[in-house]
Structure formats: C-alpha cells, structure tokens
C-alpha cells in the first residue's frame, strides 16, 4: 500500500526542485529513455544500444551493467529502474538461442509498463561503420513512416506510435528551417521494418523550397516483429487523457464562413426606441413637415470584418 512508502520531505531547495521535476504536471517533461542490457547481451545488441543512445542524447540513460531480467515475465525491475531514473521509455537488449539479437522497446505510464514490443535485429550497420559527418547531438529528427502496414495492422499502429514517442525529442514551438538535418525513415514491408537514418542536405533549386539530397549516416536496422505486450484499451485511453486545462479555449461569438470572412456577434441590451436621440442624426432630417412620428430606429446589423 502507499502508506508504506516513506513520504520524503525535502530539506533543501535542490531536493525540492528534484522532486518537483518528477511529479505529474500539466505539460510534461520530454520523455527520457533508459537503455538496458540483458543478462546475455552480445556485441550486436550492445552496439545497437550505444548507437540509439547517441541518437537520443541527452534524453537517454545508458546502463553499463548487465541486468538479468526477463521483461515479458516480470516487470518489477523495469518499473523500479523507471522510478529511480524517471524514465518512461525503455529499450532492453538481449540475446539467446531462441531469440537472437532481441530488442524490447517499451514505454511506461505512471511507472508501470504500458506497451512492450519485441523486435529482432536482422541487419545492423553501426554509426562507426559509416564514415561521414554526423548530425550534431540533440537535433530534432524528422520522422517518416512508409508503408500501408503501419495503418492496417493494429500492432504495427502501436509500434508506429511507440516509435514516434521514442524518437520524437522535445516539443518546440518553432524550428530553424536550415537546421533540419536529421531524418529517421521507417519502411514496413513483408513483415519487416527497415529503419534508416539520413542526413539532409538542402540544395538550391529553382524555387523557394530547396531540393533535398540524403546522405546515409548510421544506424540502420532491419527489424522483425516478435512478441508484443500491448496495454488494454481502457488503460491506453486513460493514458491518452489530457487534462482539461490544456484544451485551447474557444472564443465565443466568433464564426467563420467558407470564404474566410470572420463574423462577430454583439449582444445589445433592449433599446427603448422611443427614447432614441434623433435630433443629432442628420440623415433622418428629411423634411421639417415629416419630422414627427418618424421611426428613428437603426436596423441592427451584424458587424462585419473581413
């Protein structure tokens, strides 16, 4: 029960800031990823973890030691790590005869495992093997998913969502157009997923939009989907729920029509037309003989602004 957890009261400002960073907030921090090696991780898997760490720096934690756990059977140690390091994404690499070069990619909700998907690495080209200039660390990558499998199959859809969550990086309000350097391209075909990472070169073209040339940098992975452990529908819906305060406030009494004209609506109090000041309205002064008993009301119009 929660009563057994000690409520740590912070004694310093630094400790208080540390705890405040970890508590649930309206707009959340960027998700951190933890990269863990299993009990029998081989060289390929270790290299993959190191390369993904290089891509995801500084929002990733790479654990150096091997941890003997099986995520699909027992999730407590993963949850413990997640709580200690405040990471909600994880990548667990292992290798055995039955499942060679295994990668388990997953995410957490409230420090409990939400989704886990096991992928097998068929082909791997490391960052070291490709001798190019790489992108600077911390560049927000562009993500592209090609293939109809990502829309049709439920597991592939979750995998796509998970990969977006994993590689997205921080959410920014604006971006420097010349700094779009990194792109991660995922293709799904024949039960395999090809992940490629390119560097974008913007070349001159005739018009404002530059011509794109791509240069292959690492890492590139050929993945095949193995087991999955997806969250139940209602848990997933619960995790998607956003607090109401984040919804953009709708401005009332403003409407738009198809042509782009903005209409505004003004609510007036009931006018007493008999008390309307007509002396100062020159337009109503037609003839002296007809001044009495003239209805001086101005027809209410909707105020228009283009």
């Amino acid at each position, binding site marked *: 029960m929660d009563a057994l957890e000690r409520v740590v009261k912070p004694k310093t400002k630094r400790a208080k800031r540390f705890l405040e960073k970890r*508590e649930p907030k309206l707009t959340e921090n960027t998700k951190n990823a933890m990269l863990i090696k299993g009990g029998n991780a081989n060289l390929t898997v270790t290299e993959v973890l190191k390369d993904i760490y290089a891509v995801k720096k500084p929002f990733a934690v790479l654990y150096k030691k091997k941890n003997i756990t099986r995520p699909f059977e027992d999730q407590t140690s993963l949850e413990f790590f997640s709580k200690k390091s405040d990471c909600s994404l994880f990548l667990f690499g292992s290798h055995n005869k039955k499942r060679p070069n295994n990668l388990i990619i997953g995410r957490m909700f409230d420090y409990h495992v939400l989704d886990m998907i096991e992928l097998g690495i068929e082909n791997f080209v490391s960052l070291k093997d490709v001798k190019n200039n790489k992108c600077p660390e911390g560049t927000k990558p562009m993500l592209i998913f090609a293939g109809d499998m990502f829309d049709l199959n439920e597991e592939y859809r979750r995998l796509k969502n998970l990969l977006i969550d994993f590689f997205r990086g921080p959410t920014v309000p604006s971006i420097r157009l010349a700094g779009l350097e990194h792109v991660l391209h995922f*293709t*799904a075909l024949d039960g395999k997923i090809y992940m490629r990472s390119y560097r974008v070169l913007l070349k001159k073209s005739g018009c404002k939009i530059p011509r794109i040339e791509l240069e292959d940098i690492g890492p590139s992975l050929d993945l095949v989907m193995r087991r999955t452990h997806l969250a139940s529908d209602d848990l997933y819906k619960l995790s998607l729920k956003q607090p109401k305060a984040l919804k953009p406030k709708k401005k009332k009494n403003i409407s738009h029509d198809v042509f782009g004209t903005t209409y505004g609506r003004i609510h007036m109090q009931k006018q007493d037309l008999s008390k309307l000041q007509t002396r100062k309205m020159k337009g109503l002064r037609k003839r002296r003989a007809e001044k009495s008993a003239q209805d001086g009301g101005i027809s209410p119009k909707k105020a228009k602004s283009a």
Partner: protein
Amino acid sequence: MAAAVRVEELLAAAAAGERETPPGEPQPPPQPRGVSVEKELELEFDLGNLLALDPNPPPAAGLRGAGPRREAVLRALARDNVQLLVAQLWALPAERAGGAAGPLVARLPEPSCRLPREKPPPRPRPPTRWEQFARLKGIRRRKRSSLVWDEQAKEWRRRWGYRRAGGDPARSWLVEVPAGADPEEDQFAKKRQEKRERVARNEFNRLRNLARAHRAATAVPAPPLHPTGHQSREELGLAARVARVSTASLGRFQPRLPKEPVELPPRGRGGKKRRFQPVLGDLAAERGRQLELLRTMNSKKPALDITRAVNKQLREEDAEAASAKGKKRGQRGKRGRRQQQRPGRGGKKSGARRQQRPAGGSAGGGKRKKA
C-alpha cells in the same frame, strides 16, 4: 521567366551530379533537379512532430534482395518523402528570429498525433481550511511589496528574512513589560516561548492540511447515508445505526424501533465495560453453571473438537480467498461496493460466539478461534 527557371535547373543539375532512378517507382519523367514529387496517395503530415506518414505500399520488387540496390531504393523513397515534408515545412509562417540577420525560423503548429502521457494528470489539491474560509468570506489576497522602507537604516530592506526592516526580532535588547504583567516574569523567555508555539502550530496545521489532501486523494467512496433507491439491507442498517447515535447524548436515551435488536457495544475500542453476572442472583442458574463446568472438566472428550475447528478454519480461508478474487474483479460498480461494505459476514460464527459468552464463558473457551 520560364526560360530563366529552366536554365537554373540545368545548372543545378550539372552541379549536383548523377542520380539513379529506380525502375518501379512512380516518378515524373527526368526533371531530376525539381522539387516536385508525385505519389499515388497523399501523405499525412503532423508538422508539430515533424512527422510524415506515407500510406503508399513501398515497391516490393526493389526491396527484395539485400545489398546496395535495396539501400538505393530505400534512399530514393526516403528522399521523395522528405522532399514532400520539407515542402510542407517551408509553407509554414516563418520569421527571422533575432532581427533581420537572424536565422529563418518557422512557427510549428501543435502536434496532432495523440501520444500517451508519462504520468496521469495532476489532481487539483483540495483547498485548505483557510482557503475555504477566505472564499466564504470573500477575502482576497493583497499584493504586498517585498521591500519595505526602513526608517532607521534609511534604505529599502526586505519585509522578512535576512536583514529585515525593523531589525532581527530575536536580538531585541529591550522588551517593555506590559501594564498588567507580573514584574518578575521573564519577558524574553516569554517571547521565545510564544515564537516556538507559533511555529509548532503552523507546522501542525500544515501537516493537517497535507493529511486532509492525502486522505481526499485516496478516499474510498463511503456508502450513502441519505436514501437512494438502491441500498442493501446492511447499508440501511448502517444508516439507521448512524442516525441513532447522532443525538447529543450519543443515542443513549433513544427509544428503540419495534423490531430493532439490542446491540451490545462493539468489543475492542468501544464498549470498554465488562459485564459481570450479578453477585446474588439466580441461584439455580449459578448452580447449573458450576455443575456444567465440573462436567466438562471431568469428561474425557476434549473441549475443543479438533476436526470441527480445523474445518471451520479451512472454510474461512476459502471464503477469504474467494472474496479477495471477487474484490479484484468487481472493484468498481455496485457489486464491488456491496462487497466492500460487507466486512466479515460471520453469520453463524459470530452468532455462536455471542451465545457462548454470556452462557459459559468459563467453559474453557469452547469453540474459541485462534486470535
């Protein structure tokens, strides 16, 4: 104008070098330096995440064999997709950050892809006692300036804290004895005592507010005491019991309803009084009790029937396990609530216990359960 554009394109073509066009892809006829890309199905874009989704099935033929050919096919596909995404990004409203010479910066829209949160959204904490009172009375918070003019030091000093205006109250060297106070009393000690009390009281109130908030956050919904249409017998009994005890004398002089059972006060915390039989009462009953006691002491049969006790224990454990499983399944909903409010529904067991206590509490425990 068109001629000038074509010249530029040719020059760019010459500068960029050769590009191989893979066979099976829907591409426009060699305008290789253009920025236009043709696709069968339009891509979906989520510019807030710099995301593009291509629903076109990739060319299966090109990707079959492993090796550089596959890489080339993938790269061409990626190039087209990135071109389309970049075209979309360049279409966003852009401005120059940091003046006219700064970099061109595009304003991204909100990300439209729904991704699950890391942690559940924070619950609003319940208002403290003061906040409730202030809201009731309509008291609003006054803005206070953090610096106050100190007349003695002739400068702006903090309102409280290090080097506050008015000097450190702990180092006041002169305290006036108030008019009605005892001249022997130590006023400095009194001030220190008062400060200690104030601090303790504030801390106590803060912890109480925290506890209240924590309790509200982890509250189990209590059964409603006001009449709803769907109350069970136990819930109604609870409501009746609470109503009886809600008088000023805690229900002691409350007349019983026609068939309401007389309830003994609950053992344990409440009902501290032990009940004894009157000293000079029913002689026949007393004699009967003593003879019964002698009989059980003399009999060879053990007072505790082992098999019966073991069976009872097993039955109780089974019932507990079943209720725990049912609790997990029916945590929400009416059934779950009903099960939560039925604490040990002992029935026979507690009835048997009750009957034995006044009759033969001395009979070696009888069917007493292990504690």
